[in-house]
């Protein structure tokens, strides 16, 4: 006989199962990929500033595509495929790229100095990573905080030599650390 307590117990079991299914970390390979892309993408500002735009015009979309492939492969290997989640991720990160693209009118109308674009992009990145951390993988939260800190660093320590190389190294190390921590946690859970 189905009674009220039984129903509540069953629903509590279902809730637990659904919660377990939501505890999925992004694959470490995506963090390593963006550690590499970000390192070259920010260090290039110190050495070839005129090539930065071209670099990101190619590296951004290629990185996005590779991330989608890596994420999709990881989901298939895990045995949990969600097209909806894929679309949400795609919209979230392409939204960030679109926001960066919308800086162009600010630069062409003289309202934003070209040299400040990487700073504003760092701020956009910080917000995007933070919101991704709230919505999805908690590892994005400290990354968002690191990016916000580096945004301030590039403003208040603007005269430091190799400013962007230092920023690139910090971003790359943070991303790589997030990937390593996630991989270690995945191994602990698995075994």
């Amino acid at each position: 006989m189905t009674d009220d307590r039984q129903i509540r117990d069953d629903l509590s079991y279902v809730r637990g199962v659904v919660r377990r299914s939501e505890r999925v970390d992004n694959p470490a390979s995506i963090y390593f990929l963006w550690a590499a892309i970000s390192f070259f993408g920010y260090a290039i500002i110190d050495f070839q500033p005129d090539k930065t735009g071209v670099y990101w015009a190619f590296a951004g979309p290629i990185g996005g595509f590779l991330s989608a492939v890596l994420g999709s492969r990881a989901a298939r290997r895990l045995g949990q495929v969600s097209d909806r989640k894929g679309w949400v991720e795609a919209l979230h990160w392409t939204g960030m790229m679109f926001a960066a693209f919308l800086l162009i009118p600010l630069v062409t109308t003289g309202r934003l100095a070209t040299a400040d674009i990487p700073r504003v992009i760092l701020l956009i990145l910080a917000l995007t990573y933070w919101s991704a951390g709230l919505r999805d993988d908690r590892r994005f939260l400290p990354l968002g905080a690191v990016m916000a800190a580096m945004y301030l660093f590039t403003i208040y320590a603007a005269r430091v030599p190799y400013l962007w190389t230092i920023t690139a190294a910090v971003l790359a190390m943070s991303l790589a650390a997030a990937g390593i921590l996630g991989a270690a946690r995945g191994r602990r859970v698995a075994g």
Partner: protein
Amino acid sequence: MKREIERLDRVLEHRVRLAIAVLLTRYERLSFSRLKELTDETDGNLGANLRKLEDEGYLLVSKEFVDRKPVSWYAISTSGRRALKTHVDVLGRMIAQTGKPARD
């Protein structure tokens, strides 16, 4: 209340089958091994529950190779989705009625 109980879907009354149906409305496809991990059931129990859902026409099953290993994928069918919605609506009404004076 009695009338509501009669409207519950007998197949989805089992909590493992209910959990599987709910999961499959959130994800397009889940593999057998992932379902086993999430429900914490044995191969035999999970297989029996999946078969019951499949026999009822609530699940769609496909098989493919992932990393050279055979994988069984499960997805919810339209009738499964409809049955789950009705079942959950009835459960919701039953819970809402709790504490109210019984009319049946």
